[in-house]
């Protein structure tokens, strides 16, 4: 455990995260972007909105890894870690939704855009469904946790649900976009990874941006984990 505890108190990666974010903001606002007719300058949102989703998925993955670790060691600390990563992931997901709503309302849902028909058409968007599923799974995870009183049992059952749900989530993210028409770029597979129109100048900002946002989220989570561990100590 001491190894995992250590990284929370190191500061180099926190500094790295902040530096990367500063770079993201500066380069993201001043850098050159390809001028796309439907997006114009809003393509810069790639560095903010899309990163939320990436960071969310990374945090959920860390949560599952800690769930597996819990089932192998039955160390309650892994359960706390797993839970905190899940909640921070949800927060990022909600931010992703909020920013997506803003971005959408000035691009797809724009009344000047002939492609826009109704709100219903937007709600059928596969990426929206996929992320809604991801968020609902983790909401359900938290509801499940709250419904069990016994601590060990709660940790065990929620870890099992976490792994099961995560394993089901991946195929669905992979399946659903193939079935439904999408306005989102990156129709097959991962968005932004194979943007046809994302050129090199955007990529050198995008990848650091993902890492930067993720590190920031991890930082917040480690603080929450430390609070959780403190509470845990107090109870004993």
């Amino acid at each position, binding site marked *: 455990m001491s190894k995992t505890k250590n990284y929370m108190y190191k500061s180099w990666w926190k500094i790295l995260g902040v530096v990367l974010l500063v770079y993201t903001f500066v380069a993201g606002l001043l850098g050159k972007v390809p001028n796309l007719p439907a997006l114009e300058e*809003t393509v810069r949102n790639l560095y903010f909105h899309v990163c939320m989703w990436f960071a969310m998925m990374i945090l959920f993955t860390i949560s599952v890894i800690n769930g597996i670790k819990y089932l192998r060691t039955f160390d309650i600390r892994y359960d706390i870690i797993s839970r905190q990563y899940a909640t921070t992931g949800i927060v990022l997901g909600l*931010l992703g939704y909020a920013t997506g709503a803003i971005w959408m*309302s000035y691009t797809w849902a*724009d009344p000047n855009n002939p492609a826009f028909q109704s709100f219903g058409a937007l709600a059928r968007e596969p990426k929206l469904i996929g992320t809604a599923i991801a968020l609902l799974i983790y909401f359900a995870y938290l*509801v499940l946790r*709250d419904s069990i009183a016994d601590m060990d049992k709660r940790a065990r059952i929620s870890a099992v649900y976490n792994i099961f749900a995560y394993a089901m989530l991946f195929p669905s993210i992979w399946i659903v976009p193939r079935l439904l028409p999408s306005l989102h770029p990156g129709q097959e597979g991962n968005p932004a990874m194979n943007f046809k129109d994302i050129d090199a100048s955007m990529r050198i900002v995008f990848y650091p941006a993902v890492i930067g946002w993720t590190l920031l989220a991890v930082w917040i989570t480690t603080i929450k984990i430390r609070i959780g561990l*403190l509470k845990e100590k107090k109870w004993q």
Partner: protein
Amino acid sequence: MKKFTRTFFFVIPLLLCIGQLAAQGVKNESAIGETMRSSGRIYVVIAVMLTILAGLVIYLVRLDRRMTKLEKE
């Protein structure tokens, strides 16, 4: 512990509302819409950045409060 369940049932309709408002707000052209669409819609990016910042700050404030409570106990 019940708090979370309550938040859960609160957040879902809220999300739907946000989407609905965002979709409808644009329909009636307003001064905000004009501004947002000027200079290559750069203000959309600003709005997105501010939303993320506000979200993270609100989250940190809540965390801070919980920490204070814990310290008092």
